[in-house]
């Protein structure tokens, strides 16, 4: 319940927004890079909602596997379906800088503004209980649990303005060194990002809670390597189409977490006596590929203004007024490994994080006002994991609104 795949925010930020601003770079893509000496400030607001997960058979189900409850020696009380509704509000601030035309660096600062988790617990009654004259109803069960000291999980709101893992990145457009690429309309870049462990893990004592680390957000690894290729059709299609493909690998660093001792949830979260005071999660890495098409819907007028040095030719080279993009991403996620003093507990946790895959569709509309003389781009993105079935993956949907401001000081 505490791990949420909101969106690959930071990766998207570095990969998709780096950068459509170069005088020679009219489109978004996997191989764009900031022009030398250019800064770009990118502010994004992400709203993520999560209502279910793809199970091991590729069916949409609850976020957490169902829990079969048993009365000691009294048979099955019932089946608890611990579904939940999760909302994340995140602000991502990015600053990028073009060291060279083919080399850019960036810093991403994700701040979780608020996380809300609303449990939607459901109940399937179990065995007839002779001592009650009925099977346990849902309210019976929670009365029973509360009499044993276990409160019913309620709505959780937290992470108000909490920093996530900082991201540092570098992009190298190595294809610039090979003139044949440029001549054929191809470009390729290698992007490497690394996350610093500045995020906060979820409160270990809470049944329903979320943290702000990369593991919690499930967006990208602590080390992420992307190799992207773009093909532009400058002459054939009036430079209105760019096709891109990238492959990537995301490595997650093992991380140690405090074991809950059940001080607030004595039945559900009392693991410390047998797993030890802490445990390590070694998340399953991501391997995947994306395919993207950028279509220029409207190039718009080009106005020679101060940002183009009042040069009409430079203004024409700025990105078009409206670019529409669609991206398909496939991610294979590996098995997540738990390490504690109890192999039995480890397995129960690992069972929730089996290998799987995600099918992600992303739609973006990018408005660029550079041609009009304003140093501003705004964009909106809808990213969905719920449209195409996946396996062992949470089906998060994300809406993103962002703005970019380029600047060049020398």
């Amino acid at each position, binding site marked *: 319940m505490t791990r949420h795949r909101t969106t690959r925010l930071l990766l998207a930020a570095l990969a998709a927004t780096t950068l459509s601003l170069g005088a020679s770079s009219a489109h978004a893509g996997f191989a764009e890079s900031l022009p030398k000496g250019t800064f770009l400030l990118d502010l994004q607001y992400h709203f993520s909602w999560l209502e279910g997960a793809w199970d091991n058979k590729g069916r949409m189900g609850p976020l957490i596997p169902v829990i079969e409850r*048993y009365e000691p020696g009294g048979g099955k009380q019932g089946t608890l379906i611990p579904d939940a509704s999760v909302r994340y509000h995140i602000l991502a601030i990015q600053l990028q800088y073009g060291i060279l035309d083919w080399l850019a660096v960036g810093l991403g600062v994700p701040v979780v503004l608020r996380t809300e988790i609303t449990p939607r617990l459901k109940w399937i009654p179990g*065995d007839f209980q002779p001592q*009650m004259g*009925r099977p346990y109803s849902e309210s019976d069960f929670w009365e029973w649990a509360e009499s044993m000291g*276990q409160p019913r999980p309620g709505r959780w709101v937290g992470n108000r303005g909490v920093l996530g893992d900082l991201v540092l990145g570098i992009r190298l457009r*190595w294809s610039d060194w090979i003139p044949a690429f440029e001549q054929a309309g191809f470009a390729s870049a290698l992007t490497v990002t690394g996350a610093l462990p500045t995020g906060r893990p979820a409160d270990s004592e809470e049944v329903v809670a979320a943290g702000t680390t990369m593991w919690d957000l499930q967006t990208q690894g602590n080390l992420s390597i992307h*190799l992207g290729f773009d093909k532009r059709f400058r002459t054939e299609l009036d430079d209105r189409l760019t096709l891109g493909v990238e492959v990537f690998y995301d490595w997650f660093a093992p991380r140690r977490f405090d074991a809950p001792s059940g001080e607030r949830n004595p039945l559900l979260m*009392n693991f410390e006596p047998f797993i030890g005071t802490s445990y390590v999660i070694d998340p399953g890495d991501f391997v995947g590929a994306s395919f993207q098409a950028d279509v220029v819907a409207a190039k718009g007028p080009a106005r020679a203004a101060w940002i183009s040095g009042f040069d009409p030719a430079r203004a024409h080279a700025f990105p078009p007024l409206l670019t529409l993009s669609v991206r398909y991403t496939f991610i294979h996620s590996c*098995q997540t490994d738990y390490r504690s003093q109890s192999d039995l507990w480890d397995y129960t946790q690992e069972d929730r994080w089996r290998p799987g895959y995600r099918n992600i569709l992303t739609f973006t509309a990018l408005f660029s006002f550079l041609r009009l003389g304003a140093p501003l781009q705004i964009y909106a993105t809808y990213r969905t994991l719920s449209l195409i079935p996946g396996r062992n993956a949470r089906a998060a949907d994300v809406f993103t609104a962002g703005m970019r401001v380029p600047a060049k000081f020398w």
Partner: protein
Amino acid sequence: MRGRWGLTFILLLAPLVAQSGCDEATQPAYVQVATLRGSAYERGFQHGERFAGRIRSLYTTLLTQSLMPYLNRERPDVASVLLRYQSAAEGVPDSYFQQWRDDCLATCERNCTELCGFSYLLMRDSAEHLKRYIPQPYLDEMQGIADGADLPFEKILILNTFFDTLLSFRSITYYIRQSQSPILVGAVFPSAAADGVDNDGDGQADEPGEGVFQPFEPSPYAALVEVPPDAPIHLHLHDIKLGIGTDKGDTPGVDPATVRIRHNDVQYQYPRDAGIITILPSPQDPQSLEVSFLPPGGFREAAVEAIVVQAGDFNRIVNPPPMRARFMRDERVVFSTRGYGQPRQAIPNQGLADGQTQPPSIAFASRGPATTNGEPLLAHHFALLDSNTTHKHTVLFVHVPDQGIPHAVLGYSGLVWGMSGMNAEGLAWTFNTSDTLDNPMVEAFIRELFDARLVGSGVPIGILGRDLLGRLGTVAQAVDTLRRVKPTFGWNVLVADASGDMAAVELDGNLEERPEGGAFVIRPEDRDGGEDGPFLGGLDQNGLHIASHYLKNLDDLTTRVLVFDLQPQRYWSSFYYRSVRARAVLGAGLRARHGTLDADTAIDLLRTPELVDQRDSMMAAVFTPRSLRIRYAMGQVPATDGAFLDFSLADALAPPEAE
């Protein structure tokens, strides 16, 4: 130069991807085999060192997270009778429990919910009391486990004794609860009084009182035979107020709205099925309820019919929650209708498997002509408590002691004992629970009344089994020991040896000092009711089959203490009817396999769906004492759903071959 760097970067990807282990997690083995050698302490240390994680896991998931909080809820009910367990909540701040709790909380730093709770006090006190009955080698072994696992001895002692404590405690709390619930005091078949048939098998037809069962007597056989199928049955329910417990309701009597009657596989409930269930007026007695039942179209002709009756009272128990009426135990009445043609004793009180109750533990032993090759075997399926965790901690322990007989037991990490086992001389042992109020906790209550302490006494049953296996080689020796030992509760033991000898021994606390000494021994040749009666413990002289009720010890305890009428097992135990049914199904299965029994057919029989507790099945095994082989299934629920693994004790004990 630049190109080389770029290429290097790109090539970085390949090894990283290649190194990414992406293997799917696999379930750790829930079944382990451990051979322990040396002194008792050394064997315990090996055990504790190897299974430290599993021991902690079992303790926490079964006791801390399941049983202890569950038992904590029983304290208010218990404290209404046993005053030393009252608390400040009941206005008694200086009670034994409250003072202990206050002291505990004042010094406790971690896990205080567990360590300062009522159930921990209960388990600890009882463990300390039981300790004096445990032979020293087993205490040494526990100390070894504690040292090997780096756990306090007290926790290992509790882990090894909670089972015995729990069952005695449960019998008391269950009985207190049942004694305040409605009771089926009578069943009347009015049509049997004038049908011209001998319905009760007494040689007379329509004599006065024929068809009247008042007081109602739970029986392993049919209540009546050849009953006219078109007439109703009248049931007399009764409910009294004892003024104890946490539901001191003022309104006595049975709530008609809670009356449920299951006829074979159809459930009827009043008032939804008024007309089928008819409430008869009984204005003179507000504590009574007369119910008439006749299914639509009447009962079937020439058939065995079963009805199961349940009702609650007008009280509403609010603590422990959830709120509910006090419900009586399901009472089952079986009878045959006109034309069936079988005597009472030939019709077991079996009823239909209704899915609402699960079968309890069973065991059987066979030999000679009953088996394929004459080799004796002993089979067992134990079911009681899994709580979705126990099955993950199973271990087949082989003990090779410095002194004594090497032996194997099927048990759990952290326990020195098991549910069954066999030794190198071919003595095999199993036990089942058998509810009884003839136990040491009740003894303490009889002796000290309101000031009684809930502590067990006697040799814990599993340790008793270890003791037999470690010292004795024959059934005769085992029976002799069982006759002399003080048990902690009611148990049905089944033992067999390589010679083919076998015995069932029904144990209780012998509070009434009967001549059997608390050990009722059943041999295959024993008959019920004289030389011409049916075999008491089996189908013939070549087998015994038991479940979780007494066959011979039918009057385990009948006495009165304060307002409580303490009664024999069959009147109150929630295991009784399902145990009677399970034993009948087991008997039918044995009959069908007579002459063909071997380990495989025994396993096939253990897997009979009507004999498998789907929720709390713990482990199943077939022992062949002559060949020293064990076929065992555990590590899943039900245990019999998994493969029966083959283990040769002889091979395990053979000296390693020289290189």
